[in-house]
């Protein structure tokens, strides 16, 4: 912890960054994301097991967008998000100083993108046992059953868009769902309108989601959205041998062609 603070303090002191993105103590023993702009404030910077939120989200917010340099305390999920954002031209290496934190909570020092790629590949990606069980359950279903399952699963959605708001990959300035000429997705939250919204979101995340699970955590009605994107990532990995969040340069499975891509559906 002290090491993280030391790095953050130095970066601010040397004016290499104008803001350090991390966590501070919140109310009622909770933690909350915090922006530190002064070296002396760094004392408040904390990192503990509760700091699971994917703060890569804020890299695209105003505070960070306007800073010349940003440091971020980055768990493996955050690192993967950063790499994917870089691959999609949303952030540049010069600006971001990654203070790596391993899955065990140890400081991994400052990671440049190359080191971050290595870090991202070597850090384990764990699924919770209950998630695994749910995936197995869904995989055992027929296609029709699966569709019905998801229609049912989406039905409690109230279209609060918290999933979108918490997702670092949902950075579009104007979301599709807000386009009203033509109106692609109905605004009201009803059974199939919900399906349309979540399907669209899942398709937009296919091959891009790094599976941080933030969507599920933020969902007030507990829709297992993380499972949906996880299964999609898995499918993309199988079909295209491509995984999001491992490369800082463009590797998107669904919009890039390589000679080894399966073409049996064309030929």
């Amino acid at each position: 912890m002290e090491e993280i603070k030391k790095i953050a303090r130095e970066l601010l002191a040397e004016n290499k960054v104008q803001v350090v993105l991390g966590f501070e103590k919140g109310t009622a023993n909770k933690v909350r994301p915090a922006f530190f702009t002064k070296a002396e404030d760094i004392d408040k910077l904390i990192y503990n097991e509760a700091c699971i939120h994917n703060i890569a989200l804020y890299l695209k917010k105003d505070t960070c967008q306007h800073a010349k340099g940003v440091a971020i305390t980055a768990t493996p999920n955050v690192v993967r998000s950063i790499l994917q954002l870089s691959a999609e031209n949303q952030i540049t290496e010069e600006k971001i100083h990654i203070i790596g934190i391993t899955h065990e909570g140890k400081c991994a020092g400052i990671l440049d993108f190359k080191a971050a790629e290595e870090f991202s590949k070597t850090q384990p990606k764990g699924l919770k046992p209950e998630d695994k069980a749910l995936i197995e359950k869904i995989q055992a279903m027929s296609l029709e059953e699966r569709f019905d399952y998801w229609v049912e699963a989406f039905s409690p959605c109230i279209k609060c868009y918290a999933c979108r708001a918490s997702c670092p990959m949902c950075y579009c300035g104007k979301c599709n769902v807000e386009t009203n000429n033509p109106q692609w997705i109905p605004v009201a939250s009803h059974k199939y309108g919900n399906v349309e919204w979540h399907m669209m979101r899942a398709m937009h995340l296919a091959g891009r989601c790094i599976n941080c699970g933030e969507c599920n955590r933020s969902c007030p009605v507990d829709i297992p959205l993380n499972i949906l994107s996880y299964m999609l990532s898995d499918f993309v990995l199988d079909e295209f041998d491509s995984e999001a969040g491992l490369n800082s340069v463009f590797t998107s499975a669904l919009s890039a062609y390589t000679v080894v891509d399966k073409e049996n559906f064309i030929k």
Partner: protein
Amino acid sequence: MARIGVFICHCGENISATVDCPKVSEVAAKFPGVAYSVDYKYMCSDPGQSLVVNAIKEHKLTGIVVSACSPRMHEPTFRRACAEAGLNPYLCEMANIREHCSWVHEKGDRTDQKAIDVVRMMVEKVKRNNALMSIKVPVTKTALVIGGGVAGIQAALDIANAGHKVVMVEREPSIGGHMSQLSETFPTLDCSQCILTPRMVEVAQNPNITLYTYAEVESVEGFVGNFNVKIRKKAKSIDETLCNGCGMCTTKCPQKKIPNEFELGMGNRPAIYVPFPQAVPNVPVIDRLNCTYYKNGKCKICEKFCQPKAIRFDQEDEIIEVAVGAISICTGFDVKKTDFFPEYGYGKHKDIIDGLQFERMASASGPTLGAIRRPSDGAEPKKIVFVACAGSRDPAKGIEYCSKICCMYTAKHAILYKHKVHDGTAYIFYMDIRAAGKNYDEFTRRAIEEDNAQYIRGRVSSIYERDGKLIVIGTDTLMNHETVEIEADMVVLATAGVANQGAEELAQKLHVSYDQHRFFSEAHPKLKPVETNTAGIYLAGACQSPKDIPESVAAASGVAGKISCLFSSSELTREPLIAFVDRIAAPDYSSCTGCFLCQPVCPYNAIEKEDIKDRAGNLIKSLAYINPGLCQGCGTCVAICKSKSIDIDGYTNQQMYSEVDALLNS
């Protein structure tokens, strides 16, 4: 407020026999926004067009729907009519009630309803059409010809003789291609070299042609009329401007035992070499992989003997950039080697050769000076077996197509063999004799009747060697499918013609499509046989599919005609139905997020980066920008864009959506 005109065409009885046109017109008149609706017997006729023009003027129409045939034929006709009436031509839409209704359905209410629905959709669409201006792009009147075989030579000469500049790129040290390797040509038996060499020299001497041999296309950017091409000119280790082609270096080179590619390994060449005596240009190259100097740092004997002092050991590859307006791909083909055949010994028997090797052997300039000799011991083969369809029409080996040229060249080989070995017997195992072509069947009859070629209908199952003979085991399906065993001295496999090495990479560089066998694909198998799907890039010769010489030459002249047409004016007019990225007011400027996921999906490399900067020059945002000269309006970028920031003029999301809406809410 929209004022749409609807014009229902009877197409004689083509439509009206099935669709109740007056009824459709009546219903359409009541669609919201329709100001005028009429039906007429032949809308495309002169009076029909006048009807349209007058209606536009009289009813002050803001858009029209012509409900008639497929837009392919008559959309331009009605657009012209619009323009004549002073309406932007892109405010005209066609509703296809012929191919989509009358030709495919029976007369009845449901068919009428479908016609009405189709018209309704187009009315809704045209209400949202925008006036568009056609796009003009300049044309660079230089053509790039990739490949210097007979197709490339023909294309280059035809284009150059039409007065345009040509840049020709050839991978080998000399132009000439496979045709320069051939002995005689079917069906006339005239000498291949004799007819080709003068054409090769013409290429070298034509002032309009710039020739780069030992060179390859490195990259291609740009679009029709405006390509930027980088050419890698590999180091020949020779100063071409100084070399006088005396050939002293090649005779003095101590390395003499390198298998000669031109002779397909049946002869040797030195490390500094000209591929064949008639090579154009007659400038040697140093094969650095085999040259003693490059291997051991010692030798330089060629340099010692070179009088004009043209040897340059330190020469490096050179990248040449050229601007061209059109590209012709003439990269030719290759043949499968004998090691492709497990049942014929994986190529381990020296006396089993492929057709191209036989050509070299039969050629007067070849390794045997035209004598037919067994590669193993130099003896004259008295019994020779030709195996047609070796690898072709063989799905199990992955080649299901017919290589087309083998029937003819095998008949030619049998004739040539008989002309050289009078007491020999030639057996030909074949499946079908495919000799469709002028004087082709007569030629194969000549092989059979005059030169006594023994045609056996059946395939060869295996060949093995025993006591210096090749035992060929085949069958005769015309004789009760009996097994035929021939003790042959030599076997020639008419191996399949396949796409040239590197064809796939080249196709990817040029963004043209290719088939599963890596042959380049034409834009339309019948009506656009020499065009690719990419405007300004054309195809000629066997890079498209196996072709013989006359076909290759014809295709090349076709390409030259196409390119000359393209070069006939200094500007190209293109339809403005292309994609664009939306632009909105500050501070967002566009809903584009600059993720550039659209960039790799664009088959035409049309998507560029556009930086939006503030007055101080600081970058605010990077956006996608679609180059209107390159975009072909395919819409792939529209589909991939998550924020729906890309749209296509003439087919906007709004237009498409309203069409669907009109259909669902009818």
